[in-house]
């Protein structure tokens, strides 16, 4: 298998990783979409792939799709398909944009401002 222009195929072909699906069921998923493991989700089925298991495990903490792809060392288009399926099956929750929790709280900002002013 050598001598074919330095081509080294990966053993796991992309169509196997996605189970033959190439259209993410959720078009809304983008690189910046944040994923989080659903609180109510049970354990993954025994036939879950290593990629899906890793995805769900990584999303115990909020994780962007781009980060997930980098961790899995997979093309973004494939991870998008995998993530959409997990969201559909209820294992992950997708959040678009900056999540509410991460946004600075106005009251907190006000308190910080007040505190700073008191320092003077």
């Amino acid at each position: 298998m050598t001598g074919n222009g330095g081509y080294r195929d990966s053993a796991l072909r992309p169509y196997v990783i996605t189970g033959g699906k190439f259209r993410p069921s959720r078009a809304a998923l983008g690189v910046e979409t944040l994923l989080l493991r659903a609180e109510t989700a049970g354990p993954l089925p025994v036939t879950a792939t290593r990629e899906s298991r890793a995805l769900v495990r990584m999303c115990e903490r909020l994780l962007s799709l781009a980060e997930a792809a980098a961790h899995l060392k997979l093309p973004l288009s494939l991870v998008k398909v995998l993530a959409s399926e997990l969201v559909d099956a209820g294992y992950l929750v997708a959040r678009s944009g900056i999540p509410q929790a991460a946004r600075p709280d106005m009251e907190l900002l006000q308190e910080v401002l007040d505190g700073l002013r008191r320092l003077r």
Partner: protein
Amino acid sequence: MARPPSTPALWPVAMVVLPCAVAATATGLLPAGHPWAPVAGGAGAVLALGLLVPLWRAYRATTGELVRARAEVARRKSELARRDRQWRGYTGRQSALLREECAHLLADRLPTVFAGGEVPPAKYRGQLPPAVVSGFDRLIEDIAERLADRDTAQRMAVVALAGRVQTSAHRIQCAVTALAERHGHDPDVLETAMGVDHAATQQARHAQSLKVLGGEWPGRAGDEPLALVDVVRAASGRIVAYRRVQVAGEQEVGAAARITEPLIHLVAELLANATECSPPGTVVPVTVRTVQRGAVIEIDDGGSGMDDNRMGRARQVVSGRRPVALADLGEVPRTGFAVVGRFAARYGFQVDLSHSPYGGVRAVVLVGRDDLVTVAPLGPAPAPSRSPAPVPPPAPARRELAPPPGPPAVPGPPRPRTERSGGPRHARTADPGPDPVPPPLRPSGLPQRASRRGEPPPAPPRSTGEPPPAAAHPQPTPEEAGEWMADYFAGAGPDAPEPPKG
């Protein structure tokens, strides 16, 4: 031959009568009363007797000769008859032996030559003329030699042609992989590209099967260990009905890099058989589990199974006990089991078939402990690691499996342990006792993950100056986030290579 009448008794009579007659005649020639008459008679008798005695002697000598000659003739005749009988017997026996030797040659020796087996020796080596035996032997040697030459030439040709097909299949895969990378955002292109990839992957597998049957082995070892579940998935990518294969079982037991390619190919052939021999709509369940001697991959199909005869033959073939060559495949070649057997014999995998509880055939591949490694789950380590690794995802661990502990202290199959580099396992200190066996195992043999909810937040990173791993920080620092996004956008350009896996 009529024997002349024996006349020995006549001789004395003749010897008396004839001299008397001569004497009488000589006496009678003279006038009666001649004084010379008795003298003449006596002289005549003596003369006659003198003539008769040599004649008699000659007669006796001749007769004796004759008797001896006759006896000699009779002896010779009987000798001749004996020799004739002997010769007939000998030639009869020889021709019978020769016939049998020829039959042996045609029925046993030549077929064995053509089958390429150990040729039995001549049956009557000591009894037939050496020239005949060695002639037969030479004939067989010549045939064997020519057959071997032709077989080698054919195999080399097949291997070379298969190699070309395989190379071209890999070029196709290479091209569509590049296409998919460039147009990854377009599902239509992606779908078509992957369809082409799938077809090319199968083509490469068929070509490699031919090469293996032609006696050449996959030259390239895999780059890195592959989890057995992924070996099965990679194998499923090489058959038509990859969507029907469902893999379950141990996630962390992996095949060492050197055996990934042969193992994938072997499992692919078994999966091809399983999917082709079961109804199109059915699932082919595959289970990976560790056992005392290593790990097994079990493939079940819901087909109609095999009768005992076929099963017996197939078991011999898949186990490698009965090698099948290219020439033995026949007009409708069934290469799958033959290839499995070749790989099994070469790499020491134990492959066996049995009747499956699903109704069809269960194929079991046992991979020995020496060929196994433990692979870490994908992605970053699950526990907050304090090792100052700047890039979160660690390379898969490549530790060889430790020998199994004796009777396991916890229920569940013995499973390989992975020691993670890095800090102590969190939340495990409550486990009393010096028992080094860590966390309870689930029935699947996987470690039980503890929920982190309710735990105190991870300690702040030590001031080592290096960026801590991302997994430990749900909310990365602005610098980290900046690096991430920079890396991401640098990697997402149209000319960027696919992440290392592809």
